[in-house]
């Protein structure tokens, strides 16, 4: 590993920029993501910053059961993120549709079908610590040594 890569790893591990997108949830998981920003969990102490702009993001948090309005749009958001990038789904909805995936509903889970997902956080809603752990595990597995591997 050359020195440049080492510096990049070091910097990247302390500077993860996050955008979140709600593709049709009940807002419970949005509140938990919001709790991550609050002083009790304080996501910025780990060097994770929320911008909510896909063009300057590294990690996309996807929340919700994928309603028909998000067809094509979610992939568009995903393509706007510059590489290296990773998407994390928050909550049960993007995995299984949770309580919304019933007969006659129009949701189309899992989100995994539509964009590549690096990590999934189950729970309805998950604890802020679980969200935080998922982001940090992705940080280590996706962003470290990215140039060497691609």
């Amino acid at each position, binding site marked *: 590993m050359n020195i440049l890569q080492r510096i990049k790893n070091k910097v990247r591990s302390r500077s993860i920029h996050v955008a979140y997108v709600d593709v049709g949830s009940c807002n419970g998981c949005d509140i938990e993501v919001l709790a991550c920003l609050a002083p009790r969990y304080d996501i910025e*102490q780990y060097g994770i910053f929320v911008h909510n702009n896909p063009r300057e993001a590294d990690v996309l948090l996807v929340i919700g059961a994928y309603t028909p309005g998000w067809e094509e749009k979610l992939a568009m958001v995903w393509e706007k993120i510059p590489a290296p990038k990773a998407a994390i789904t928050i909550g049960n909805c993007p995995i299984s549709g949770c309580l919304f995936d019933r007969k006659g509903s129009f949701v189309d889970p899992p989100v995994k079908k539509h964009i590549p997902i690096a990590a999934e956080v189950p729970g309805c809603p998950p604890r802020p610590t679980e969200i935080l752990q998922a982001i940090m595990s992705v940080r280590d597995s996706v962003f470290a040594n990215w140039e060497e591997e691609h």
Partner: protein
Amino acid sequence: MVSSLVWYIREFARAEWIKKFLFAKTAPLVTPSHFRGFPEPTGKTCTHALFCMMACPAPGAIEVVHAGDGWMPKIHKGHCIRCGLCVEACPNGVLKSGRIRETMEREGTSLLFSFRIAIDTELCTGCGNCCTACPVNKQADAQMGAGGHSSNDDVIMRVQEGDIVVIHEDKCTGCKTCEVSCPNGAIRIARILEGYQQPVQEGWQ
């Protein structure tokens, strides 16, 4: 003024303070023990009453599957909403989650299932499919024929003179096998989940 400056430098130049200033973190992010997480097995034996599956509000969240010799509930993460109803509904205490079981013991609460059998006499043809399909009937009277006739009084229901007669509604386990086997949709099982609380002991509150 000089002395206060010296005091300032001495106060803030301590290694401990600098370390704290640079590497300050909020409290370690541990999950408290009372958090109602995904249900976990307590080690008690599952008797396959399936009350956990009946009480579960989330589709596909819990299944009772074969585990070695017996049965064991399996939680599907990504479906489970961690409501804890399966923990409360279980008659044997197979699952635990947070402090649900402790709270139930302390307050003397329980969730009890009961089942009602409703037969629509307009639709029922008296074919006896429900009687022969019922697993409890099979145990009570192994000799029951295709018509659902039985001379045994221990069966849940039997056909008498072309009509279904329910004898022991209390023996119903709520499996709804009869509903599936009925060609007309004439039989319906209602699963009733009721919360009970024992009277509070004297000296409490």
